């Protein structure tokens, strides 16, 4: 399935919705969105992963890049990853570096940040 990434920024929250397969051939598309989000004054990055079907090593690298690019001042949420993607995040320990949640609840995230 073709990879797609869309960025939406509301107030201090950036939301990137991912779909398809994130690998070496598509990682740059995601990287561009990350760069665009980082250029804004945000404190939260929401990665909607419900439609993301596959995460390769290069895709994982892009998540690591995301965390380092955003820095410690930006909370990163991974929302609804599919089982295979979650499995990869767990085995490589990346799930400790971000917040993995089942559903995106803006109010809950706002309260967690406050």
């Amino acid at each position: 399935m073709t990879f797609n990434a869309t960025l939406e920024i509301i107030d201090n929250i950036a939301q990137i919705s991912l779909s398809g397969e994130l690998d070496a051939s598509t990682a740059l598309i995601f990287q561009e969105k990350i760069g665009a989000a980082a250029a804004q004054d945000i404190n939260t990055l929401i990665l909607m992963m419900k439609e993301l079907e596959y995460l390769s090593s290069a895709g994982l690298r892009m998540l690591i890049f995301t965390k380092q690019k955003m820095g410690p001042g930006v909370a990163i949420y991974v929302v609804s990853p599919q089982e295979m993607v979650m499995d990869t995040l767990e085995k490589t320990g990346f799930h400790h570096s971000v917040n993995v949640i089942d559903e995106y609840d803006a109010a809950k995230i706002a309260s967690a940040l406050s």
Partner: protein
Amino acid sequence: MERIDIHPTHIHGDFKLRRGKPFPFGATLVPGGVNFSIFSSYATSCILVLFAKHAPQPMAEIPFPEEFRIGNVYCMVVFNLDYENLEYGYRLDGPTNFQEGHWFDNQKILMDPYAKIIGGRDIWGIPPNWDDVYQHRARIAFDDFDWEDDRPLEIPPEDQIIYEMHVRSFTRHPSSGVKEKHEGTFAGIRDKIPYLKELGVNAVELMPIFEFDEFENNRTNPETGEMLLNYWGYSTVGFFAPKAGYAATGRLGMQVDELKALVKELHKNGIEVILDVVFNHTAEGNEYGPTISFRGIDNKTYYMLTPEGYYFNFSGCGNTLNCNNPIVRNMVLDCLRYWAEEYHIDGFRFDLASILGRDPWGFPLANPPLLETLAFDPILAKCKLIAEAWDAGGLYQVGSFPAYGRWAEWNGKYRDAMRKFLKGNGSVGEIAQRLQGSPDLYAWEGREPATSINFITAHDGFTLMDLVSYNWKHNEANGENNNDGSNDNDSWNCGWEGSTEDPGINALRRRQIKNAVAMLMVSQGVPMILMGDEVGRTQYGNNNTYCHDNELNWLDWTLLETNADLFRFFKNCIAFRKAHPVLRNRQHFQNRDYVGSGYADITWHGTQAWNADWSDSSHTLAFMLCGKHAKQGNIVDNYIYVAMNMYWEAHWFEIPGLPEGMKWNVFANTGVTSPEDSWEPGTEPLLENQTGLLLGDRSVVILVGK
């Protein structure tokens, strides 16, 4: 302005090229491309061979232009590669002359000795395609793991408690309770960190995790017909790559991330990671072994050869890496630096380390350059360096390993002496030395007690349960007519060979296990326990299970329930050691009072206080540590008294008196059944009779004076 040093200068087919950098060796990501660099002293030409991942045939072969060779290094940048889906190898041409030691063959595709990821055995136990032209496939790794603030823990050596373990064996058994996909993997160990924490160890020593080929074994189990493996992995394919089959993500090529995540999580929990590294030989074996890498790249440089061109076999495994050749020495150094820097590894245990002190012709060197280089390397400066101070060629260097003030040793003499004492043999004079951190071996050279890695069991040999259950090895399942494995086990079956329903024998075995760990945990030096000994793991008398991917090696976690008393005893003994710095001195005892406490730092006793029986026939010994001498008098600790009765009958032990106002409390008595056999530190009950106690047959008592 654009950098001109990242512009291609040459073209080969669809590939754009530029002369590369010789350093670092291996394949390195550079702006726009990948820098390939490989060394060969005798090659006359070199071709870079590129594969799409898993592809049976190369997608391209790019000869290194002669102007890309610098000295003996071929280096080239190839631009615009899909490096995530890339595998690479080399063809090298040069002389072929057996007696001269040259094995060049440009028909073979060779793995990069510096490969950071190696494919081909991605999932454990999946039989490979033996017709594949490239069996062990070099891939490119990334170095962008999110370590956050992690760094090696730098636990003082004398404070370490090492747990020797095998990655797959630890969680492969279905009873491990980890997710099925995590069984037998780095991720599985991560799931079990709470267990390691509860036990109390603060270092894990992982049996080899460098890429190896589990299919490097052509034997079968004569009892079952099952194909045997190279299960332990003491046969390295690539020194820079983690074993893919040990990673749940190996099939995705993410083993680097998975292992780093394990190290990071262990560190978060205060547990160091020591790697068992095998630099004495490689998986290429003898003259009949496979050509994987070194043999085809620079046979004469990488291996020790006889004048006739055959491989020296000081490793017992077919060949011997030529470690004191300057090129090979640098590779070993590069390798260890890489693991220390890139994986935050805390220390290394060197398999058959005495080989590393031999010259290219096999003679022991007085001042081995490799050992000296590692001892003084700035990047490895805080890493533990531990030698298995012997080799298969007969060099035995326990107590005399060239240490440069840095090297610790697996103390084989500790193992042998303690085993003999346990079964009622041996000399109490030697036991006294071993309990003190073997000053007879190390103090004369100014080497500290932590030089001595104390162990009674390790992966080589019987488990602790088998040590007290078998007089003889039972290695028939290894397919070598029971000829493999050591015959010198100093074991005692307590009256019956193997498992038994006899309650008396079983009680004695449990007591002997507790005696062993009690003595280990009160010895100066660094204690090491073997995975599973804390729950009574058995290998059914097999003392060399290198080839079994089954319950002979897998840790059966139901034993945690069956032998809960053993686990509890181990846990308490470890906690006791951690609670008492007087057990973990940095310097050797001086056998005198240098703090004005009225007691020497260590005093020796027997059935009579202040009067040890040092005779050859003695099986009793006791000692007292003065708490005011803890850490050379810098810390005040409790007093500790340890009495050991290895006679087959009970003995009354008179106890030395304590300073005014202090009382003896009982931490452990192996002659008593659980749970009264040991206490959590701080909860020890008062000893009823402060002047003496009756020690049961083959029992150890530990008192704490406070």
